[in-house]
């Protein structure tokens, strides 16, 4: 295993451009010919994504040997090579490419079954392709500007996809909410990029180490915190997490795509990519925010009853865990967990979608005993749940334990907090599993008995993801000598399985499982009677998501709307009134004078009256809607400006 020591070579491969270009091409095709393609339109998207996956896999050999693949086209030949369209693949971005293309392909296949019969089928797959294309562009970009382009496109596509069923007002509102909330983060990212360019004059990712040496720590902290703000928006970290649970209004495959493979991963990827810019102080912020999100979302997930919402909060929680890893400075661990999480979380979402598709219900209270009617879905959901709980030796175990190890190394207390989080994870995910698939069918609701196994086109992709949920973690396991970490450039890896950590995390998972069974399914009280009021208060707090939405509504949105309304009122009453009044006075004056002139001086002073009338009309010009008066302003502006600017 000496390839890690081989000198890094940068190869130029033009086919790199095809990775984002294929889905983009599919988008264009579907946009213009979608109606004509009809039922065949999903295949266009699947083929494009599979093609991108193929190219990604063909690069694997090169990348695993420690080489970089890059290609760039001149864009603006101004002063610096900054302004080029450059794509590059190293270990980090290859991993993301693999995750996005493989899971994107699976989800596109699955959507073929899930979206079957939807009137806007081809439009859905067009958006899906554009989403993947922009995500791939984001991942492949070799400098901030292109990444930002992809970043914004991802935001746009998520808006389009979340509000895909825009006939539902909640879906439209959720799309807006996602767009606006992530926009707050995007603004931070843009400011960070501008600040970086302004101070360091360098936007290439490969030069970040040099930039770090060049800039003062305070400035670096500011830039990295701004970048993290963008990442927090996309990865839905506290306090910008509110959009993600609402985004569940979109079609379930979209939830799987956004919450597993692509959009939320973008934030983690961004931080991992720009980690050289992060100072200890900003890493502390990342760690704190990640930990808060991890625990906060975990407790909320324990109390929700909508299966998609539980999965959404579980995603938040897992993203928090990745941010914790990033905060510890261990980007490879975060990326490893991102990869395994992508598989099992996509599988969980697709399983949930399969349940919703079959039972037409997504409240835990209306579901039960589905294992008999949907054996495949149940088995795959079980695999994903076990994987997420971090049980040896599925994927989730390897990635979660790597983070636990790193935590123990840096802050021993953090290990215990994270173990608590792991127990919570097991508890909420098995609560979902047990109540959906085990127990008895709820006959009196009339929904569940009609349930049937989903069609092959939906089960097959799920099975593929199930293989990933079982085996993807091996890539980072000591059994295979951590090929993944070598890929990501990490050399200090733990050899062999750490037995205490294994034992503790198993204990935590067992604890969570017990909790899920006793409280979640049997609905028994664990607390002594004296503490029950406090417990139920805490429960209500978590069930209402800690009232964050309400707080935002009360302290941000309401005052803002009030302010806007106040300004509108001021505009209408005071300013419009003033203009109207002036106009009316002018008019009145004009009429008066005209009458006076006609009566007294008759024809001689008619011109004066017309002047005043013209002045009155000019004062009213804002409200006339008459083009000639606008043109008059334009001409006057031209005259004045050219007179002023004349040399």
């Amino acid at each position, binding site marked *: 295993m000496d390839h890690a020591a081989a000198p890094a070579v940068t190869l130029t491969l033009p086919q790199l451009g095809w990775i984002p270009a294929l889905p983009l091409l599919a988008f264009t095709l579907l946009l213009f010919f979608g109606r004509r393609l009809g039922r065949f339109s999903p295949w266009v998207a699947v083929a494009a994504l599979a093609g991108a996956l193929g190219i990604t896999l063909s690069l694997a050999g090169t990348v695993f040997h420690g080489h970089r693949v890059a290609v760039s086209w001149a864009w603006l030949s101004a002063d610096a090579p900054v302004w080029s369209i450059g794509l590059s693949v190293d270990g980090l971005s290859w991993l993301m490419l693999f995750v996005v293309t493989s899971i994107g392909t699976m989800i596109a296949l699955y959507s073929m079954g899930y979206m079957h019969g939807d009137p806007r089928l081809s439009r859905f797959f067009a958006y899906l392709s554009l989403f993947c294309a922009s995500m791939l562009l984001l991942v492949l970009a070799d400098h901030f500007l292109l990444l930002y382009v992809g970043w914004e496109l991802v935001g746009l596509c998520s808006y389009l996809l979340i509000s895909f069923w825009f006939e539902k007002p909640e879906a439209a509102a959720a799309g807006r909410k996602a767009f606006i909330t992530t926009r707050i983060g995007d603004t931070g990212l843009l400011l960070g990029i501008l600040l970086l360019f302004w101070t360091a004059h360098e936007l290439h990712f490969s030069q970040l180490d040099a930039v770090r040496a060049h800039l003062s720590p305070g400035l670096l902290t500011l830039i990295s915190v701004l970048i993290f703000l963008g990442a927090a928006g996309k990865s839905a970290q506290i306090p910008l997490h509110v959009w993600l649970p609402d985004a569940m209004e979109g079609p379930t495959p979209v939830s799987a795509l956004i919450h597993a493979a692509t959009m939320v991963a973008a934030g983690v990827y961004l931080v991992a990519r720009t980690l050289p810019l992060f100072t200890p102080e900003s890493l502390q912020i990342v760690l704190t925010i990640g930990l808060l999100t991890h625990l906060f979302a975990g407790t909320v997930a324990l109390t929700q009853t909508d299966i998609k919402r539980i999965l959404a909060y579980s995603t938040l929680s897992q993203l928090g865990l990745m941010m914790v890893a990033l905060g510890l400075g261990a980007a490879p661990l975060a990326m490893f967990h991102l990869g395994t999480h992508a598989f099992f979380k996509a599988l969980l979402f697709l399983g949930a979608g399969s349940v919703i598709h079959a039972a037409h219900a997504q409240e835990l209270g209306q579901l039960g005993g589905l294992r008999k009617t949907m054996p495949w879905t149940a088995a795959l959901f079980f695999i994903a749940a076990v994987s997420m709980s971090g049980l040896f030796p599925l994927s989730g175990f390897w990635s979660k334990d790597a983070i636990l190890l790193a935590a123990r190394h840096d802050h021993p207390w953090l290990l215990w907090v994270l173990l608590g989080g792991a127990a919570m994870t097991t508890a909420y995910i098995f609560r979902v599993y047990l109540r959906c698939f085990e127990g008895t069918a709820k006959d009196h609701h009339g929904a569940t008995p009609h349930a049937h196994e989903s069609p092959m086109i939906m089960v097959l992709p799920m099975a593929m993801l199930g293989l990933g949920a079982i085996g993807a973690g091996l890539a980072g396991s000591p059994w295979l000598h951590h090929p993944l970490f070598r890929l990501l450039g990490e050399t200090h890896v733990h050899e062999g399985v750490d037995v205490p950590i294994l034992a503790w995390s198993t204990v935590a998972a067992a604890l969570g499982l017990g909790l899920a069974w006793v409280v979640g399914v049997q609905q028994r009280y664990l607390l002594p009677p004296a503490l029950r009021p406090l417990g139920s208060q805490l429960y209500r707090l978590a069930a209402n998501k800690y009232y964050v939405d309400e707080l935002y509504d009360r302290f941000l949105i309401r005052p803002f709307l009030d302010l806007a309304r106040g300004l509108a009122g001021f505009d209408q009453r005071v300013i419009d009134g003033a203009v109207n009044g002036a106009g009316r006075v002018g008019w009145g004056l004009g009429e008066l004078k005209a009458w006076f002139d006609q009566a007294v001086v008759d024809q001689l002073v008619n011109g004066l009256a017309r002047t005043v009338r013209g002045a009155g009309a000019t004062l009213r010009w804002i409200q006339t809607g008459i083009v*000639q008066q606008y043109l008059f302003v334009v001409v006057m502006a031209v005259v004045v400006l050219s007179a002023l600017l004349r040399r």
Partner: protein
Amino acid sequence: MPVQSLLLLSHALFCLGIYGILTRRHAIGLLLSIELILNAAALNFVLFSRAFGHVQAQAFALFIIALAACEAVVGLAIIIRLSRTAKTVFADHVDLLKG
């Protein structure tokens, strides 16, 4: 020096056209004023073509005449349509965009 005096003439034509656009209320009157402006531009082109011996300038004067024909045709079609549907030929009566 005819160059400068003819420039004066074309400026005057142009500004009269602007004045017409600003004041005319009849849509056809607007079209007439636009023709004045286009003629001023064409006159400028021909003048410079003569003064500098430039061939392309004359070609562009030719293009201007062609485009003026297009503009007149479309404009008149719009006016006739307008007179049928909106029952008016006055530009300021067409204010559906008024806020």
